């Protein structure tokens, strides 16, 4: 991509003249401030999680992780992510296809609506389902009559998780597909491919890294969501407790090792997410919309 013509000018830019960079002391102060800030606010919290988890040795750590309640929390978190992430992938692809490939009235408004969950407090995201499905809720009576249980059960947790992770995939795919245009698809169609073939063999390979990027962020949030899930879960140990909720319960019981042991798993997930995300940005930056500041 990089024009070799421009590349040859790089050394000139590296040896910046005093006009376009700060004096040495100012540079050191700026870098020192930035490093100190990042160390105190990002690095220390991360380190303290692992430090506290292992405070009483590796034995206490593994014991905390092998308790039945912890294991059922891990299972529930995986189950919730396994349902909500694929649903949001299907939605994200479908919304991106409609929005990026076609011109229609109200497109900008639809795009704004998709972003809506990001501007709603997680607690409110949970509250709306309580108002809908709760005992005093709009559908409460009807659901009781039909023996349906959503709130304080797995379906409610899944719904709240879908709500908060709703925009991730769509948001990544829409700008990417808009930028790629319709040329490839039109060529495939004119060569006789049908709609599904065009999607599977042309569009999907074009957006696969961007899609993976969106899925990665969606999954991290789905497994880590606390506020929304907390409101609809009912906190029933072993039944409706996800990992983040289990962290809270253990912490409030003054079981620091247990709380931080579960937290360390979630922190590990966050680190893996960051590493994969960075690798994607480095290797496939041109094929990821978010990496280019959209």
């Amino acid at each position, binding site marked *: 991509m990089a024009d070799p013509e421009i590349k040859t000018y790089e050394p000139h830019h590296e040896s910046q003249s005093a006009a376009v960079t700060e004096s040495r002391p100012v540079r050191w102060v700026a870098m020192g401030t930035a490093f100190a800030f990042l160390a105190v606010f990002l690095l220390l919290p991360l380190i303290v999680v692992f430090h506290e988890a292992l405070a009483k040795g590796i034995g206490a750590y593994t014991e905390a992780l092998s308790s039945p309640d912890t294991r059922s929390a891990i299972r529930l978190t995986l189950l919730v992510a396994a349902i909500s992430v694929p649903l949001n992938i299907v939605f994200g692809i479908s919304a991106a296809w*409609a929005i990026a490939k076609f011109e229609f009235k109200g497109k900008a408004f639809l795009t704004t609506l998709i972003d809506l969950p990001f501007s709603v407090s997680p607690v*409110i995201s949970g509250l709306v389902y309580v108002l809908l499905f709760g005992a005093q809720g709009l559908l409460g009576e009807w659901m009781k009559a039909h023996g349906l249980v959503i709130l304080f059960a797995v379906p409610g947790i899944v719904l709240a998780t879908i709500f908060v992770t709703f925009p991730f995939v769509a948001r990544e795919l829409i700008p990417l597909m808009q930028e790629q245009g319709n040329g490839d698809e*039109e060529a495939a169609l004119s060569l006789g491919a049908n709609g599904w073939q065009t999607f599977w063999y042309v569009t999907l390979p074009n957006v696969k890294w961007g899609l993976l990027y969106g899925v990665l962020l969606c999954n991290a949030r789905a497994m880590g969501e*606390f*506020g929304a899930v907390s*409101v609809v879960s009912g906190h029933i140990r072993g039944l409706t407790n996800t990992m*983040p909720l289990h962290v809270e319960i253990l912490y409030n019981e003054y079981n620091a090792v247990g709380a931080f042991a579960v937290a360390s798993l979630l*922190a590990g997930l966050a680190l893996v997410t960051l590493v994969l995300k960075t690798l994607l940005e480095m290797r496939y930056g041109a094929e990821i919309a978010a990496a280019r500041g959209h």
Partner: protein
Amino acid sequence: MNTGPAKAGWRFRQPSVIPGFGLTLGFSLAYLTLIILIPLSGLVWRSAALGWTDFWAIAVDRRTLNALKISFGTAFIAAAVNVVFGTIVAWVLVRYRFPGRRIADAMVDLPFALPTAVAGIALTSLYAPNGWIGQLLMPLGIKVAYTPLGIVIALVFIGLPFVVRTVQPIMEEIDKEVEEAAATLGANRFQIITRVLFPGLAPAIITGFSLAFARGVGEYGSVIFIAGNLPFKSEIAPLLIVIRLEEYNYEAATAIAAIMLALSFVMLLVVNLAQTWSRKRYG
């Protein structure tokens, strides 16, 4: 598919050879309506059903007012802190070359990836009176954990990537020739930064501020551990919603949520106006 006659002046969508419009738009709209729009309109409907007097009584309740004040106040301070330090971090990442820059850059996204409850207990253990940072601040008479200052710390953590990631791409696009031109015209570095670079960055900084602020107002998971949650002192609005729900006081929970949404909406409107103004002013 569902386009009207081609001759009509108004057309819902422009013709295209690409198939699947009806299917994908139909599915997207149905999913959006079921998951987002119906539940959210339920909230609006419930708060409208409350009636003005009941709604007002909840809104001016002293505990509600204090919680809103704490949520919006701490979010504002945290966003302001992030504007200063986030801009410096972005500048260092964009302009300076040093070993480990890639790692520092990746670390900025940690608050996006780290579950809020994990951040909450980690920050609490750092800033508790016997924590690594807390015991350094204790002799200075500064108490962070279980005070409003703790809320600010949690919201600074949560909001940092919003500012950095909004400002960074704009900084990368700055054309160095503009700076060189300013320098040849006799401007010193300070003047270049404040008069030439800052105006170009102002809209992005305002956007970053508003994103961090909006996120901070609604934040729950990372705050409740470190806040201490004393009513009137360190109780945030989202927590008050949860408390009202646990008391089965759906009316109060709904009203507080509606007020929060309305205030956030007004805030976004003000930010949009500020942005239009700064674009006009600095072009």
